[in-house]
């Protein structure tokens, strides 16, 4: 194991949710898949890139999709959860409905 770069992603997303007043996705398996996705991206790239979007492999070009992405707050306000459905609004979380994919707010021009 290369332990030069390690990060506790589970703790990270917990802290983000707490600081922002959001909730983590309540489906433990779904949440785990996103935590693992973030860990994978951290291993690949050295930064916590959104697991639901393809990377440029360039931190500067990916800077708007470092988790939590700059689109998360607007998506949570409008749809009740972020693009990945990692973070939920307390209201949406309380409904207990299964999140579904939402439209991509990131402009197409910013994608690879």
């Amino acid at each position, binding site marked *: 194991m290369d332990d030069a770069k390690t990060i506790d992603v589970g703790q990270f997303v917990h802290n983000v949710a707490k600081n922002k007043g959001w909730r983590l996705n309540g489906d433990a398996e779904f949440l785990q898949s*996103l935590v*693992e*996705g973030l860990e994978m991206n951290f291993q690949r790239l050295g930064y916590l890139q959104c697991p*639901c*979007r*393809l*990377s440029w492999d360039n931190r500067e070009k990916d800077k708007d999709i470092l988790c939590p992405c700059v689109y998360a707050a607007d998506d949570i306000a409008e749809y009740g959860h972020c693009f990945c*459905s990692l973070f939920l609004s307390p209201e949406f979380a309380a409904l207990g409905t299964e999140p*579904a994919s939402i439209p991509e707010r990131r402009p197409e021009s910013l994608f690879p």
Partner: protein
Amino acid sequence: MWGKKTKQPQGSLLESIPFTTVEGRQAKQPLTVFALSTCGFCRRAITFLNDSTIAYRYVYVDKLDKPAQDAVRAYVKKTFHTMLSYPFLCIGEDDYLTGFIRASWEKELGNG
């Protein structure tokens, strides 16, 4: 040759893509999924297809090299005139679903 019913197949763009093929009952149109290995909705979509016992093929685009990623993106752009976001389900070369919205996938694929 430019008649409206002679759409040029773009499949050759995908020649080098190492798809994983999942056996099952045949859908009306061949199904191809572009997914990210790190994304929760992509995982849900693949689980949905596996549970439906339908035949399809998929590839994790984040695991491809850059030229192959570019080829996939070009294929989606030329064939469906839309941007690639994940998961992306190609239904033949005429229709697609983007994102995983369970009700939409059930409606589209429910009758196989």
